[in-house]
């Protein structure tokens, strides 16, 4: 199982992390977002907000980016800055 992380406003709805199975062939960020949203309506609403960004191995990634098993994915609301 792989652990997906959440930060900022997004974590209010989804908690700090959720476990998800990433298949050996990989999964796009967009597909992962959709799969996490299937858990419940609140999760779907939180992940589909237009200002929610994703990162793969701590680098910002768009929905087309591919995720392999073992990579660290995170979803989060827009940075507020320091």
């Amino acid at each position, binding site marked *: 199982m792989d652990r997906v992380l959440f930060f*900022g406003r997004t974590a209010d709805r989804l908690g700090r992390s959720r476990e998800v199975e990433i298949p050996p062939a990989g999964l796009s960020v967009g597909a992962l977002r959709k799969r996490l949203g299937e858990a419940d309506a609140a999760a779907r609403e939180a992940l589909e907000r237009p200002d929610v960004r994703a*990162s793969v191995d701590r680098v910002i990634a768009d929905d087309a980016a591919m995720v392999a098993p073992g990579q660290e994915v*995170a979803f989060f609301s827009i940075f507020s800055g320091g």
Partner: protein
Amino acid sequence: MAVSTRLAEQAFDPADELKRFLEGRDRDGAVVSFTGVMRGKDRDGRALERLHLDWYPGMTEASLARAAEETAARFQISDVMVVHRCGDIAPGEPIVFAAAAAPHRREAFEACDYLMDKLKTEAAFWKREDTANGSQWIEPSDKDRADAARWSD
């Protein structure tokens, strides 16, 4: 050239940071520092109990380092440093201390100003203000975006 950045989970003292930054400094005439302090009231004058700065371990540190390195590359400065709090911050506590040292004061002022504009828009934090009546996530202000846009990259 030394570029130093630190993410602090506990309260820190800007005076101690300035002291260390000044130590042994007899080649640079000018040191400019910025201290950002947690305010006791929000933009609408309501009392704040706490500021929570959520952070992504690893990514947040990298965003601080990137802002400091871009500053170092852009200005004629000798050294630059940032200490940035994360986690729960009480009113009156320092949130950020940034400093730049340069042979000339103009470069030190501009570098510190630029660095703060970068941090205010690009640092990987999520800011939540907690009041007696609930909590609110904060996005970068239009003022922060306008300040950052002053520097044509």
